């Protein structure tokens, strides 16, 4: 299975890909994760990949190759939608973060992104920021997104919760578990 996670540098996409990788490893699969470090992390467009299966060679997912695209920001979903396979699934956070090109007026933020993406893809949209507020903490956006996306990966809920528990900081375990379940839909 080919999973792609996109967002804006600093949104926590790296942690999400690592949790998916961990669950896939425990599930007995060969796993490869490709990450982005360095300059691109500074508020830029960030992409990570997780591939798992019987045997995985290439660490990246290519255009027209993703089974699941998890987008932490909708412009980034729009930017990378062509990476989805025809029957691929998009889980998108309905949140807008203006890139500097838009802020300074050099470009316009596209309108109706989600509607347009629904035309041709299976799209599950949620506003993870608003959902996070119901838990009283804006920092659990990535766990909510992971919970939503977990529905479309072949692993049981308990395995996910275990991986979340082992990956997030000790003090935030309970909060992140709640956030995961909120996204998961329980």
């Amino acid at each position, binding site marked *: 299975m080919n999973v792609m996670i996109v967002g804006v540098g600093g949104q926590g996409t790296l942690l999400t890909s690592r949790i998916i990788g961990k669950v896939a490893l425990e599930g007995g699969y060969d796993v490869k994760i490709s990450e982005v470090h360095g*300059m691109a992390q500074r508020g830029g467009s960030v992409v990570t990949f997780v591939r798992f299966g019987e045997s995985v060679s*290439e660490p990246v997912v290519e255009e027209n190759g993703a089974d699941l695209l998890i987008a932490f920001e909708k412009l980034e979903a729009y930017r990378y939608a062509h990476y989805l396979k025809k029957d691929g699934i998009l889980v998108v956070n309905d949140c807008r973060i203006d890139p500097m090109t838009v*802020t300074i007026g050099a470009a316009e*933020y596209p309108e109706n992104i989600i509607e347009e993406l629904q035309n041709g893809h299976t799209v599950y949209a949620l506003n993870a920021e608003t959902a996070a507020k119901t838990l009283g903490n804006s920092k659990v956006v990535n766990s909510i997104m992971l919970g939503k996306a977990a529905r479309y990966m072949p692993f049981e809920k308990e395995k996910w919760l275990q991986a979340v528990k082992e990956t997030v900081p000790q003090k935030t375990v309970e909060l992140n578990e709640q956030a995961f379940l909120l996204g998961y839909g329980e």
Partner: protein
Amino acid sequence: MSEKKIMLGNEAIARGIWEAGAKVSSAYPGTPSTEISEFLATYEEVYAEWAPNEKVALEVAAGASIAGVRAVASMKHVGLNVASDPLYTLAYTGVNGGLVIVVADDPGIASSQNEQDTRMIARSTHLPVLEPADSQEAKDFISLAFEISEKYDTPVIFRTTTKLSHSQSIVALGERREIEDKEYERNAKKYVMMPANAIQRHKFVEERENKLAKEACAFSINRVEGEESEIGFITSGIAYQYVKEVFPKAKILKLGLVNPLPKQLIKEFINSVKRTVVVEELEPVIEEQIRAWGYAVDGKNLFTVQGEYNANMLKKAICGENNDGVAPKITPARPPILCSGCPHRAVFSVLNKLKIHASGDIGCYTLGAVAPLNVIDTCICMGSSVSGLHGIGKAKGDEFLKNWVAVIGDSTFLHTGINSLLNMVYNKAHGVVIILDNRTTGMTGHQDHPATGKTLKGEETYAVDFVALCKAIGVEDTVEINAFDVSALEEKLKATLGKQTLTVIVARAPCALLKGQKFPYYCTVEEEKCRHCNACMKIGCPAISKENGVIKINLAACNGCGLCQSYCKFNAIKKVER
């Protein structure tokens, strides 16, 4: 069965260094190599440090090797340029304890200023190069690198690339082997490289390389795999994974040792297939050598010397297959930017206001080159901002220099900027040098350096005082200013630019991402006072945006630095306690 773990390439390299019984490591941070040292620092048995630059790091590792222990220096590709002075001669001296130099190349320029190929330097230094293709090999090849180093009396280059260093794959862990320290014996003929000795050692270098090339034909890391096929592939490193992805059953000669090449093995392989394709990212290093032996192999006639490869690229070049997916949508670019609360933004806002050009350097602050700040004119290599400004001044004189400064980060200044400043003092230069002192090595993710007061292992140590240092080398007019005090900065610049003096301004404020650096308030716009002059938008802060004509500050993104407030003429921005 040994424990299995999913590991970052760089984490696996660190694990390999530990398992191989190495005792000393020195490095300067640089993407994509940085995490090697950070992971190494967690192993008690290995002394690991940050050095001020890669030349120093390699010399430290060489000293440890000569003394008789296994030692490592790690760096990014351009770091090897800085370390190439010791490198070329260490190739002659050889080693006592094994010496491995881990070099991370950056095909695709994810976070660098060029995409040079370390194998080219290896060829001219006549040093062996090992190249792994996944995290398991990254760990396992390190032990092998030390064995080759000791057996053949040579430093060994361990080459990784961005995709390998920053990908995770499954690794079966091993245990640490305790390697007994070697005796140190004085041996001037081997370690004192004056002409008579160096001439003799150069003979040894040639013999060593020929011997290794012959014996490498039997190395298990140079292996033929796959079934009989029309096309045979010769490949190594991450490129091997792309070949496997497209041609899982093809006949492949996978090279683990990419310099020197195992000539006989390669010849036999080429003779066993109808057509040979060499798949290597960057330079045609393998291909050109094979062609020089008289074989017509395919390689760069199919592929570019630029960027990273991928499976689709191979499919298209070899099978003529196009990806039948949809075209990408047209979207506004999202380039990396300075973070909210970044002290560099404060300094750049003043330079932008005064319309000053900046001779720039390597670090987060290179991002000052893009809109809306647009203040950086040049970025070449570590330390070049200061010497570049000096050259500009000598070329065009004081009148031209009145619109110029040099900007250099704290870590970069200590890396190689200090020599350039010495040169300015010595050669009676005028000009203004700004040290952007954000108390850390920022771009690579917060590594300590000689002015932070902490070592790689987290111990307290002496912290260099930039003002005292610059004064001591002769820059009497050195002042420290809080980077967010934009009026003091402006005043100092106006007082010194164009004058026949040499000035250093240490613009100091910690990186906004350092732990505990968030200010205790956030900024907000009082809409009734806002005149929509857009002055606050000109500083390029990612927390500030305009929605339906109204300027908004995103509370979650605001760091509370108050720079926008400094530029609001109508007092429409106020600070609110968190």
